């Protein structure tokens, strides 16, 4: 009986803690967003962050997109050939990339390359009292540190997703046309005919939502390192970064499901 009581009360405590952190994370986001209205955003800082995100992830995304497009084409080809409808290859590759794989894979790459780096950078800033210093200089950390990063992610992730889609469709072309010998005309026609404006829009909305989560969560874990981690220091930073990466990926995939089901 006592054991049951304990486990129920532990569950309660864990739930409360989770609800607390969701509340705190929401407040954190609201503070970042509202700092938009308290003064000018440094354009220079936003550009710097856009450059940082692009620089860290563009090459990785191109390579990942190429192979993803190739393997998707390979798998679809294998299936479609059984039904004698290989001329649908272009449509199948393009649709799966634009609606699903492009946004998700891009987001995963950005989490790995940018989310982790951001969380450890912000965590180290917390450790070294850099946020305390900003407070004492009457500089708004939300506006000065967080906002440019969030805006840059909202700008970059949809862009990178578009790059992923295009390169992926190219990868599919290589497999479909050069390896399997399908006609180039049929592949390109398939791509052109099936993609509607709505498909592209949904893909872009997804990547915008992903961009929000995959920057917000690492920023949150880094900024509140002192509240979320038992130990600060290098160990806290590395634990926090791992948690942030896992959490970003899970929430990103969850939001993928939500947006997909709303869009269908």
């Amino acid at each position, binding site marked *: 009986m006592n054991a049951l009581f304990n486990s129920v009360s532990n569950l309660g405590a864990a739930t409360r803690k989770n609800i607390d952190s969701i509340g705190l994370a929401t407040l954190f986001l609201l503070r970042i967003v509202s700092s938009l209205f308290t003064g000018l955003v440094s354009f220079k800082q936003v550009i710097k962050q856009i450059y940082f995100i692009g620089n860290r992830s563009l090459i990785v995304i191109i390579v990942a997109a190429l192979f993803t497009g190739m393997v998707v084409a390979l798998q679809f080809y294998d299936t479609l050939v059984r039904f004698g409808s290989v001329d649908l290859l272009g449509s199948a590759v393009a649709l799966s990339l634009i609606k699903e794989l492009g946004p998700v894979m891009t987001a995963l790459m950005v989490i790995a390359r940018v989310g982790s780096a951001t969380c450890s*950078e912000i965590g*180290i*800033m917390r450790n*070294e*009292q*850099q946020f*305390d*210093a*900003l*407070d*004492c*200089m*009457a*500089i708004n950390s939300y506006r*000065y540190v967080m906002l440019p990063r969030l805006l840059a992610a909202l700008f970059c992730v949809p862009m990178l997703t578009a790059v992923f889609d295009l390169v992926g469709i190219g990868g599919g072309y290589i497999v479909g046309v050069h390896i399997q010998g399908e006609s180039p005309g049929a592949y390109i026609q398939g791509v052109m005919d099936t993609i509607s404006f709505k498909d592209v829009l949904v893909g872009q909305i997804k990547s915008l939502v992903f961009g929000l989560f995959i920057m917000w969560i690492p920023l949150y874990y880094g900024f509140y390192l002192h509240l979320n981690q038992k130990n600060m220091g290098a160990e806290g930073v590395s634990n926090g970064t791992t948690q942030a990466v896992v959490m970003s990926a899970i929430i990103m995939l969850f939001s993928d499901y939500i947006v997909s089901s709303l869009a269908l």
Partner: protein
Amino acid sequence: MVKPIITVEHLFAQYGDTHVLKDVNLEVNPGEILVVMGGSGSGKSTLLNHMLGLKTPTSGTIMIDGVNIFTAKNKQLRNLRKKMGVAFQGGALLSSLTVADNVRLPLEHNTSLDTQTIDIMVRMKLELMNMAGTGHLMPSELSGGMLKRAGLARAVIMDPKLLFFDEPSAGLDPTTAVELDELILTLRDAMNMTIVVVTHELESVFKIADRVVVLFAGEVVANGTVDEIRNSPDERIQNMINRQPNTQRDDGEVYLNRLLNKDKN
């Protein structure tokens, strides 16, 4: 009787269930150097963080320049902070900016001075800190002592009325420590700043303090001039003073010779 610029009254603070500050009362008068001294874990940094308004206490009040910092509105606090400079223990320079860009931050954000004027002011402050020619370096390229001095340059760039300094000489070699102590005295004398220093280094306490507040396990056990503290009958204070041999930190050369002689034996 001068009116104190900082008043701390009945300040209690705790982390979880641990009580870290227990009824701390103190005053800082304009133009003086107050040193808060105490052993490791006595609550010095906690007290400083409360004075800076970075932490909320369990109870108690702190008035700085007529503003109650725990109840002040954001704008009031911001205006107050423009009159305060803080030099953190490790410098707390933003790691993504060069030294010069760090030092100019407060000017860029809180004044409308033009770039050229800011450049000149930054160069002057860096020179004052004996850091001329290091403006282009990144914080990761600086030594511990240089980080502290760069942090100090940033703290005084707005010519604040009030300066807070956490552990100016901790972890530095004796020569650099003495230099920093002298810098603090210069700031008080030349710029008429009121300075609050937190430290456990006795040598610098006795060198720079006008008045000393001794913290012991979160309580103020003494509050007086350097001489009063030195001659205090309180056993805890005498232990604190005597445990650290003074000869060890006379100056760089003596220290070096002592080390070399030891090696010969």
